[in-house]
């Protein structure tokens, strides 16, 4: 059995930020991640971040990841890589399978779940052919593993993930044949869609994939127009010559450990579905368990880092390393920062949804 004061599950932007805050306060931190290296999705985000300078705007995700890693190493944060957390008992014991070879129980006084999210799949005939993959998976292949997943790509979904990955696929040498969007309007930021559009990639709104063809991999895709009720319109089918289909159809928070721990949940579709209820300290309905990042609602890495800081500071406070007054003050400062991230045309819906979650947290916790 391994004992620690604070165990953090997930070494992405939220988990790393939480570890840095708690470690800086003096807490003994163990950071656990199933991957061979920490950083989560930051290392595949080669684009520059938006927001203000305080939120690292203008800095590439990969460089933010490097900065966080350097800081956590300087603080001497213990990291358990290739560690899959498969269970959680009594709210403080984590069952960790390490390197798929041995299992350990990690007993922690406080736990922060920063498990992130998983890509949504979209089913259609032929979706199980090699060559159909999540857009995030394709992004990992090109930006981390330096492997081009295909030559002629069809992107399904025009949100920021879809258009950013479409652009990066072009940078990596692929041809993006088209971007499809089931809704009648495109979803991503105009600055991203404009770059892709100006590069000659056609966007098809109110369209989806009817089926993919191929013997042992994708060789062509049939697309179809949708009516205002999202029904396929017969006679509008077209065949596209592609060898890869990327699905950018949203993310779902990875909440299994929170369910196992017995946390109470609330369904908030705008943030990705069923989410562990939390308060302004990122504390869940279970004693000793905090959450941060996409598990608390699908947002961006800049938001995840701020939530990680909140969880790290407040976990350190409960461990006795930070006074209540200081924790409250810093919590308020971070919420001000979060509210500025959740402002404007795109942020308002997330802000309102988070307000709803906080109100619920206030009533329940």
């Amino acid at each position, binding site marked *: 059995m391994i004992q620690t004061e604070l165990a953090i599950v997930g070494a992405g932007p939220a988990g790393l930020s939480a570890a840095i805050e708690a470690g800086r306060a003096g807490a003994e931190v163990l950071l656990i991640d199933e991957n061979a290296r920490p950083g989560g999705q930051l290392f595949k985000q080669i684009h520059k971040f938006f927001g203000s300078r305080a939120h690292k705007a203008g800095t590439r995700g990969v460089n933010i990841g490097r900065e966080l890693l350097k800081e956590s190493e300087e603080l001497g944060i213990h990291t358990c890589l290739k560690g899959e957390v498969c269970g959680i008992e009594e709210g403080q014991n984590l069952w960790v399978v390490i390197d798929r070879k041995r299992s350990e129980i990690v007993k922690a006084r406080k736990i922060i779940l920063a498990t992130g999210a998983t890509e949504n799949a979209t089913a259609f005939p032929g979706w199980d052919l090699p060559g159909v993959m999540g857009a995030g998976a394709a992004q990992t292949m090109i930006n981390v593993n330096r492997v081009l997943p295909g030559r002629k790509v069809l992107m399904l979904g025009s949100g920021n993930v879809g*258009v950013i990955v479409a652009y990066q696929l072009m940078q990596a040498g692929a041809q993006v044949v088209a*971007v499809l969007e089931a809704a009648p309007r495109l979803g991503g*930021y*105009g*600055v991203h*869609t404009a770059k892709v*559009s*100006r590069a000659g990639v056609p*966007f098809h709104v109110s369209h989806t994939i009817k089926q993919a063809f191929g013997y042992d991999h994708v060789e062509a895709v049939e697309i179809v127009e949708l009516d205002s009720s999202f029904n396929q319109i017969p006679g509008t089918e077209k065949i596209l010559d592609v060898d890869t289909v990327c699905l950018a159809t949203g993310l779902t928070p990875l909440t299994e450990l929170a369910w196992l721990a017995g946390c109470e949940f609330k369904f908030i579709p705008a943030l990705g579905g069923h989410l562990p209820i939390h308060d302004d300290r990122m504390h869940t309905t279970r004693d000793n368990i905090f959450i941060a990042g996409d598990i608390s609602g699908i947002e961006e890495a800049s938001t995840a880092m701020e939530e990680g800081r909140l969880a790290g500071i407040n976990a350190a406070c409960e461990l006795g390393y930070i006074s209540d007054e200081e924790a409250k003050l810093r919590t308020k400062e971070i919420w001000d920062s979060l509210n500025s991230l959740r402002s404007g045309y*795109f942020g308002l819906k997330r802000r309102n949804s988070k307000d709803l979650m906080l109100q619920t947290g206030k009533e329940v916790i």
Partner: protein
Amino acid sequence: MENSLKITGAPSLEELHRSPAYPPEDRLKKGPIAIIECIEENIGFLLYEYKKNQQNVQLIP
């Protein structure tokens, strides 16, 4: 084209013209000006003016 930004992905000239940050006529007459599209509905867009002589980029609010 109306709503080009949310249909084709790129703003039309009409949409750019509607933005309050689009360079005024007298500025256009002074010489070439680079416009980097960063437009959103209801937000306006950011316009960067490249100043040849000073070799920098200025953000025009």
